[in-house]
């Protein structure tokens, strides 16, 4: 599997333009194709390596979830992105496809409050269970008071 080959396959699957330059292919997906394309990336493109997944808070434009998976033999990487839309906080989970998504998505839930549907064990990972708010949202000020600690 080469980068060019993978790019073509990805292009034919998702239909939309595939961005990025060698060795990265970037695709923006609708939310309902999030898991299926990730599965395609793993099984057909050989992207077995789960680098990371995270989210970006675009304030009024809503949240964007990003995941990067990689084919270590080629090597090339596929960057998957999806927009959740304003006010939306649910996203399908990648845990059935990639084990590494487990902790990454828990962190995402912890920091952004995104609920990953299908995640087997979605709880806070870095912050305490009784923490209020999700710190990496842009609406969360750096000096937000929190009763037990401030």
């Amino acid at each position, binding site marked *: 599997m080469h980068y060019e080959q993978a790019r073509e396959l990805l292009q034919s699957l998702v239909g939309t333009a595939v961005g990025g330059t060698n*060795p*990265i292919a970037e695709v923006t997906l609708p939310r309902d194709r999030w898991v299926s394309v990730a599965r395609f990336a*793993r099984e057909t493109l050989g992207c*077995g*390596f*789960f*680098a*990371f997944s*995270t989210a*970006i*808070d675009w304030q009024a434009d809503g949240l964007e979830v*990003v995941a*990067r998976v990689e084919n*270590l033999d080629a*090597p090339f990487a596929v*960057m998957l992105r999806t927009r959740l839309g304003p006010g939306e906080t649910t996203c399908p989970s990648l845990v059935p*496809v*990639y*084990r*590494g998504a*487990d*902790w*990454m998505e828990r962190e995402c839930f912890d*920091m952004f409050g995104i609920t990953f549907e299908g995640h087997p*064990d979605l*709880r*806070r*990972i*870095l*912050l*305490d*269970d009784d923490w209020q708010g999700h*710190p*990496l949202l842009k609406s*969360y000020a*750096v000096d937000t008071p929190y009763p037990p600690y401030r």
Partner: protein
Amino acid sequence: MASRNDSLTAATPPAGAPARAIREIDYTGSERLTMNMGPQHPSSHGVFRAVLTLEGETVVGVDAVIGYLHRCHEKLGESLTYVQYPSIASKTDYVAAMTSELAYVMAAERIGAIDIPRRAQYLRVLVAELQRIASHCLWLGTWCMDMGGALGGGATIFLYCIRERELVLDLFESLVGARLLYGFHQIGGVRYDLPAGWADQCRTTIDLIEKRVVEYEEMLDENTFFQMRTQGVGVISREVAETVGISGPLLRGSGVPFDIRRADPYCSYEDFAFAVPTEEAGDCFARYRVRMAEFRQATAIVRQILDGLPEGPISSRPGVKSVVQVRIPKGETYARVEGPRGEVGCYLVSDGGPKPYRMKWRGASFSNLAVLPHIIPGHSVADVVAIMGSVDPVFGEVDR
């Protein structure tokens, strides 16, 4: 920091209970014992809590609880400027501070398409490789201490390793002025040039360290006790290794010859000749072998740099004079560095201002540690510490 089966906190006696009430630990007839390892535990390598479910001495379930060292570095990164953050970035992975700084400045430079002078690139590689030596020294020492005890041979190896690590830190101290958290990199280059006589000192140090690595191997490589503890313990298959996303020596110990320095060269790594040591077994011993081989590769790279260090400026931009001096155009990128523990990545989104819009640390230890729940069940308590030590987590980087 949540845990599912924490029977101790759940059974806190009510306020009005008599002072010496004996708290009955819930016994439901199963022969399972819940044991809390950490957050304060001699082998937790920082503050890590593993809630182990034991059957006899065999672990049947593990719940890893992290976050005790969480400082929300990503929020910090969004509130500090490109000038300020590199010296804070070193606090994510405080054992190998040079690499996380490098990942951050590389991400910013990539968005801004900033060229780095050749000398600065070589200096970056130089400190990264020295840092790898220092970090592996600490890993070997603490790991052996996990297995050998603070009152036994483990402590001996630990102190030997610390002795050698100190020599590398001496080098950093005369280069930068600090021993642990450096602030060596800045956007556009590096902040410090080599002082006079430093290269010779560096050469003698790495010569000595190579000799000492032979000593460690003499103590451990053929050692029956050590092999009994490490061979066949904590086997990570290639499939698990990839899908969890572990990287660095762990991935290479599982038979994947993937090294970012080779696959996606940065900072002119392509100029240097080095091997990517790989082992097939995937157990603790394989990881040990990989790291011991990396000692040698690192010293070889350091020698090549010292031999071929070009003259010239160390930064393509004038030295920092104010806090908002560096502005990065709009864009986003993911820059990654092969740190001692694996892929240290920085995902940076810039909106054109002096501060990143969003910054994500992909900590190598975070992903590496996530493999623990997949491999620990079935091993005994003694193996848990051996496996954890072989993963080499640094909790500053796990919790960020």
